[in-house]
């Protein structure tokens, strides 16, 4: 059976490239133009996605807490987030008088940039990536830890004890949970033998790693979810903001659009983490296939690959949101105990198990 849409994202991109090459002869200008177009498209997509995720978060929170969520602005409250954005746009951006002005203004930019950089190697649809870098997994895990510099910068430059405490906590948290995230990513890299995102997706053509990799991969999937929730500073690991203790953590002193940029970065990070989890463990844009059931498989192929990717990503996003609205926040010592006493030893043993599994060829 043919796919639902004749035009896929990849063929559209190829046609655009062909058209631009026909119009402009200079290849350098073509490259620059394509980079600009890609950047603008990605930016627009991410901002729209953040609107959607903000709305989804509120609705999920509402339904979990037996409320309705936003339901006044627009149909079913869907324009609530637009109203909030307009409110933030019109707010005064206050800079504390004793703050380090340069770092204070730079910090939100760094946080957003780090979040957006990590989007580059994500495969949105079949053969549709911004940059299929050969070390994709390594790139994502390294770039996403740059954000901690922005957070530390924000906390330091605010000249506020709450901000600094929040930033220090964030540093401790990200540095420790990075290890578990890395080890659980490595377990898939061991099985795939490649760091390239497209290779990892293609290796799941006959089944997703979550099903092919038996219990060790299931464990590393759970560890990845927990550790990456901690890495993007979301509840129940939101010690960096901890409203009740630190009023707002590292972004206490930020207001207006600079605060909105932190919010944007939070949702982009949420998307990136979910997209990586969906790509690595759930097969990215690969449709769900069941053995030799050809009829079932062809129906699954009929659904466009971009929908598969978004569906899986939103599923992971939902799970992370459910974490947030179910569990109470951890104390800082509990947080570090969880990482160093439980997640890290388990994921180390797990990595050994996966290695043995890969050597003996026990996976499907």
């Amino acid at each position, binding site marked *: 059976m043919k796919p639902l849409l004749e035009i896929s994202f990849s063929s559209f991109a190829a046609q655009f490239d062909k058209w631009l090459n026909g119009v402009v002869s200079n290849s350098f200008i073509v490259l620059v133009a394509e980079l600009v177009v890609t950047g603008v498209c990605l930016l627009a997509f991410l901002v729209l996605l953040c609107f959607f995720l903000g709305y989804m978060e509120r609705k*999920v929170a509402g*339904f*979990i*807490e*037996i*409320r*309705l969520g936003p*339901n006044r602005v627009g149909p079913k409250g869907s324009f609530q987030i637009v109203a909030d954005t307009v409110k933030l746009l019109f707010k005064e951006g206050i800079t504390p008088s004793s703050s380090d002005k340069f770092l204070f203004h730079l910090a939100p930019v760094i946080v957003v940039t780090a979040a957006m950089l990590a989007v580059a190697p994500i495969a949105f649809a079949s053969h549709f990536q911004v940059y299929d870098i050969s070390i994709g997994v390594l790139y994502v895990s390294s770039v996403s830890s740059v954000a901690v510099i922005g957070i530390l910068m924000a906390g330091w430059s605010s000249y506020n004890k709450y901000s600094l405490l929040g930033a220090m906590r964030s540093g401790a948290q990200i540095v420790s949970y990075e290890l578990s995230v890395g080890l659980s990513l490595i377990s898939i890299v061991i099985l795939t033998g490649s760091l390239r995102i497209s290779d990892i997706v293609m290796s799941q053509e006959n089944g997703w790693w979550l099903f092919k990799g038996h219990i060790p991969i299931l464990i590393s999937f759970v560890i990845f979810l927990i550790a990456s929730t901690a890495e993007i500073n979301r509840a129940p690991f939101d010690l960096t903001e901890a409203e009740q203790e630190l009023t707002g953590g590292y972004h206490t002193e930020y207001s207006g659009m600079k605060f909105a940029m932190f919010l944007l970065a939070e949702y982009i990070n949420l998307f990136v983490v979910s997209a990586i989890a969906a790509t690595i463990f759930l097969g990215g844009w690969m449709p769900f296939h069941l053995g030799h059931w050809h009829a079932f498989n062809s129906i699954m192929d009929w659904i466009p690959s971009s929908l598969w990717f978004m569906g899986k990503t939103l599923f992971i996003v939902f799970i992370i949101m*459910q*974490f947030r*609205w*179910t*569990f109470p926040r951890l104390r800082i010592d509990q947080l570090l105990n969880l990482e160093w006493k*439980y997640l890290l030893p*388990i994921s180390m043993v797990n990595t050994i198990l996966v290695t043995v599994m890969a050597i003996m060829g026990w996976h499907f």
Partner: protein
Amino acid sequence: MFLKDYFSTIYKSVSSLLTGMKLTGYYFTHPKEIQTEEYPDNRATLTMFDRFKGEVTMPHDENNEHRCTGCQACEIACPNGTIKIITKQELQPDGKKKKAIDAFIYRLEMCTLCNMCISSCPSDAIKMGQTFEHSVYDKKQLTKILNKPGSKIMEGVE
């Protein structure tokens, strides 16, 4: 022993986390559990629960008769001085005089809805009403006379 504790901690924490997620997942997938009242929109169908205390009211029957004897027990019981009862002497058909209420003055702006007047009333003359939309522009409108004009005491209530 250490390993046993270690793994039992993991097992206990994972199972308790899953219990929590099961509950929130249940709430998420069952929108009928939602408790929110969309108040100004559902004004027509809104019913308050039985024990809701909105204001003190004096029920009158179809003959415009109430049960208040004017004993002033509520006035004494009220901690805020919310209730003021003005009595009069009414001439009975048999020529005797009998005490009856002229005005049952109730000041809603001073009332804390503590229910002490209602529990002290020996003849069940006053009750808590269900209305709660009391906002007015003038404070004077909150001082109410609860007995309706021309009303008299019900037959048989002493």
